[in-house]
């Protein structure tokens, strides 16, 4: 079993060699009077089809076409290679026709969202690992409901046990809405702990008005708040991990449509001898 570092080195070396070979071939071809754009175009099309096929692979559990994680590694390296091919194909110049401009913009969006996705998939899991146990995204609403019910029960208990409404009023004013759904998506995304501090501080500010029994309940509420904050953090992070694909994948298919038309146009309007 290779270590992660060894795999990274191996992939890096192979990727560099393949990239160097392709660049050398394109460069040598560009020195002659051949249309290098044809060669780079077909290579780019092949890489785009390969990249798009990853989504199909994920939808097909059978037959077992290599592990999905291996596919993903290839997807990443081939995706980076496609950026190089795109630069070679367009000749480091901005297209000035409407159709090609849109197509180039689409490719840029797909590439950028791909890079963003790569960064997210590298950053978010490690951050999630230090914030509580692993939580399935689909189960977050259920867990949130559990926390809400526990918080509600604590609020009821505080009234029943102490005949005081300080905590139940606080719950009704601040915590009911807090436990109802996901909160502070963007703050969690940018690693802000202010939402938790704000609400915990509010709860702690009640301490001077609480008796011992209420303080014990308030401590339990604070624990629930921290758990809810962790759930919100998971919701924001995992939602982002799933959400970027809502941009990346549809744009990929739109790009493929443009590419199909582009290939047709290029061959229909090719000024050469058939």
């Amino acid at each position, binding site marked *: 079993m290779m270590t992660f570092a060894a795999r990274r080195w191996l992939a890096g070396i192979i990727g560099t060699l393949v990239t160097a070979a392709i660049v050398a071939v394109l460069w040598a071809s560009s020195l002659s009077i051949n249309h290098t754009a044809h060669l780079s175009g077909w290579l780019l099309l092949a890489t785009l089809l390969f990249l798009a096929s990853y989504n199909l692979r994920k939808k097909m559990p059978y037959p077992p076409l290599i592990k999905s994680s291996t596919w993903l590694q290839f997807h990443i390296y081939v995706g980076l290679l496609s950026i190089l091919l795109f630069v070679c194909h367009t000749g480091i110049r901005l297209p000035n026709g409407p159709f090609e401009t849109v197509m180039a913009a689409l490719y840029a969006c797909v590439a950028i969202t791909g890079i963003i996705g790569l960064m997210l998939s590298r950053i978010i899991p490690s951050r999630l690992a230090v914030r509580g146990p692993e939580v399935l995204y689909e189960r977050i609403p259920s867990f949130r409901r559990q926390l809400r019910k526990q918080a509600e029960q604590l609020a009821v208990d505080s009234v029943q046990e102490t005949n005081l409404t300080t905590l139940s009023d606080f719950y009704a004013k601040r915590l009911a809405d807090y436990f109802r759904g996901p909160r502070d998506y963007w703050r969690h995304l940018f690693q802000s702990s202010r939402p938790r501090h704000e609400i915990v501080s509010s709860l702690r500010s009640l301490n001077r008005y609480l008796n011992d029994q209420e303080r014990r309940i308030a401590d339990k509420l604070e624990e629930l708040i921290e758990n809810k904050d962790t759930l919100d953090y998971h919701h924001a992070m995992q939602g982002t991990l799933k959400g970027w694909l809502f941009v990346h994948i549809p744009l990929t298919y739109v790009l493929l449509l443009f590419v199909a038309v582009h290939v047709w146009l290029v061959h229909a309007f090719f000024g050469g*001898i058939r």
Partner: protein
Amino acid sequence: MTIQLQQTSYQKSEYERPSQKWVCGWAVRGRPCEMGPDGKGRCTARFQTQCTPRREGDRWYCNRLETFGGPCARGPLPDGSCCRPEPEHPICQPRLSIRAKRSRLILASITLTFGALITLIAGPWRMSFISPGSLSSSHLAIEGESGTTNNCAICHNAAEATGSKEKAAFGVGIPGSAPEDMLASGRDLHESMKCLTCHFTKSQQTASFVHSLPPEQLAEISKRVASNAESTNGPPTAKLTLASLLGSPPQSERGEMACSACHREHRGRHHDLTFMDDTRCQVCHAVQFKSFNHGHPKFSLVARTAGGMQFNHGRHQETHFGDSEFRCTRCHMPDNAGQTMLLKPFAQSCAGCHSGGRTDHHAEEIQKNVLNILQLPEMEFDDDLYWPLDCALGDEEMPLMMWLFLAGDDEALDALSDLYSEADGIPIDWEPENQSLKPQLASAIKRLIHDLVRKDDHIWRTRIAKALDTTATDPHVAALAEQLGAATFVMLAYQQHCLPLLADDIEGKNIEGDEEVDEVDWTLPTGSSGWFIDSDYLSVNYRPVGHADRLLKKWIDAIVNHTSTMPSDSIREQFRQQILEQLISRKAGGFLYGACIRCHNVDRIGSRYRVNWFAAGRERGASGYAKFNHRPHMAMLREADNCQQCHKLATTSEAHHLPRSFLAHDKSKCASCHAPGRANNSCLNCHDYHVHRP
């Protein structure tokens, strides 16, 4: 997280189905049912809490699954129905899973994009939409105003469906324009031919070939260049070697290459369509080298067959002028751009000396040459045939031009074929077995005379066209026929003198008795120029009127341009080859050699001949593709007329090997300035790709 939310027991842990299309509508509120919706998005809550009781004997038993709480205590009703008429779990409105939402978004994106593309491509703005960018400024007229006009059809076949109006505006598709000609000649109409609609060239028919040359001619040049390559060229650069390995030229099997291979459009207004770097030039070439300064072959001498008139500068200098008088500007002058040194007209350059005396072969002296056009061969017949024996003084020969005209008579061709002996040349081959052909030859000659006396341009054209194996609309045919018009008067006189009853004979009327040959009252004096009848030999002759005589020039053009250098089975082609050989050959004492060809030599180029009416020009330069602009180099001359700094004359001993007596240019003289960091040393600075600039 400090609270254990996740239940890992197999009975308590929820079973997630993220890959399924529908999820429970209550999942958002954190209490999804265990079964979830069915595949069609319908809530299955009713079936989760109710059972379908099982009957054993006369009793009904609850069979609710353990997952949903197991058999209920009450059991089924006596009628066998479930005791729970209403579902315990409220019915939900199932929602799409995340993956299903993404799939729908993908489908919607594809559908919208497809629709948008169809709308834009099918709409009136399609050409503007699909245009890959603006054209270069030199093609701005084609692009026109942006909008709905389909100017793309001017250059692209694929856009032709609706662009006929725009095509017509630019001459595309007009009968007679280049592409139509190509189509008519059986060649594919590819888009490069559309370029030639505007970019007419002298070599229109071969414009699409590499270097605008027929492949066999280019192969011949490549072979010659490769065989002459110097070993001192040195190896080409690694870059060039790599490019040669990977980049074969994009040419068709027929050796054609699209204009777009080099001239790439839609790169913006300021794109230089003619730019080509040195590596791209060399990648196809047989001899490769690093640069002009490193490895470029030395300049070679211009071969005698490379074009241009014959003129021995060295002999003229030594014999007639001397160093001080032999100034270049006596005969040469720069063109308006100062780029090319032109030869002054004959009257200013040559006529000064060649207007009289022994060396006069252009002015009065040329008039001493007489071209025999028509003379009846001496023939006797067994039968009674209408034939002027008194006029037939031509022994067993016929003039060359008469052979040519007779070759235009289909009826006479078989007889001429038998009478022509390739070994002996043009003289009539009167072998015993050919004696029976005399009446046929006589008839053919009479038909020729009958045609020539009729002032009918169509008849002349038809006969000449057949003799040249071309069409009556060929410009050479038309030009030669036009010259025959001036001979009608003389031909008529000749016919009335020798064959007065020719018309009746041609019509098949019976002609009795020998007609008296009248005296020729109006034969022209033999010393005058133009058409005349020689009363001594009773022949129709032509005396050139001087330099650039029109009949001689048209005749030379006609026969040179319609004669192949290759062996042929066609009897007409063989006639033309023999006639041309006898006319232009110095050894055979050809009439035209002394009159014209001595200076205006005839070159063999592949399978064709070419006559050099003019001095060597740019396109007929050393390699065929070299160019040189004299103007910027004039400043380098230390004296006003010191052309010999570059154009060095050879010594007498070596001059006869050299064309026009000049030594090859010294490359080092050019390379002293044209070097990296100094003057431009790229290929295109001194060479053109096109043998004729479009």
